[in-house]
């Protein structure tokens, strides 16, 4: 079921006011897919950091530009959620993906932490230029559930009971 197409797609303007909405969406969905509270919080943090970077570096803090977030569960053969893949796309300035990288953390100074945080909390992170005339960047991130839910359940714990 629902195997084709995107499960969740959010289009938002590049206004920091809406960061909390994106975080709560992503974190609530991750919980339901079987991530722990800590895991869901980490996914929300990675999404927040990536959105901040699009707003600050991609759009130079303009608040009216589009950002797209898509979210899909990653399933195993038994159709159990194993993780989540999140894609962020924009129409912002294109940069060399190699240039999107963390600084040396030994130096204590404000800033320069976002990319490090994203790579630390997610299992796979890939930046690329978006194909097509509109330009923009594309970020694909995946995180796997470390404690898989027991067979036939997407709920969080081993004590969850079967549905009606």
């Amino acid at each position: 079921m629902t195997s084709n197409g995107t499960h969740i797609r959010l289009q938002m303007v590049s206004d920091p006011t809406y960061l909390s909405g994106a975080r709560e969406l992503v974190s609530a969905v991750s919980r339901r897919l079987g991530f722990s509270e800590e895991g869901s919080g980490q996914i929300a943090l990675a999404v927040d950091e990536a959105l901040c970077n699009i707003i600050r570096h991609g759009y130079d803090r303009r608040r009216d530009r589009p950002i797209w977030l898509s979210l899909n569960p990653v399933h195993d053969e038994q159709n159990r959620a194993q993780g989540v893949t999140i894609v962020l796309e924009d129409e912002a300035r294109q940069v060399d993906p190699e240039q999107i990288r963390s600084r040396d953390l030994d130096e204590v100074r404000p800033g320069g932490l976002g990319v490090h945080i994203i790579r630390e909390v997610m299992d796979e992170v890939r930046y690329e230029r978006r194909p097509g005339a509109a330009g923009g960047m594309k970020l694909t991130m995946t995180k796997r559930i470390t404690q898989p839910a027991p067979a036939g359940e997407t709920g969080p714990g081993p004590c969850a009971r079967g549905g009606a």
Partner: protein
Amino acid sequence: MPEETMRVVTQTEGGTVTIAPEGDVDLARSPTLRAALRQALAAKPQRLVVDLTGVDYMDSSGVATLVEALQTARRGSTRLVLCAMKERVRSIFEIARLDGVFTIVDSREKAATA
């Protein structure tokens, strides 16, 4: 995706069964609550307490599940009591004008005698 489940703790003590669902009771989760309520009611206990301490949110599918349980309980002469309902959950009972239909008390202790 398989039917989503939630944790529902069921406890039996004398003639009283207590059911404590944990998490938001919405359309995805109310089937789990319904299954637990039906199972408990099938034994026709004297008293069925639904402890809502762990429920921060409920929508009308959760309310419908409790109304169904109330009807079954009445037919079987089981006393159904809701306890420890959070303000946000109570407000949906008020909007649905069901706050006077259910017996709603603060705590499990009070539910034992309500």
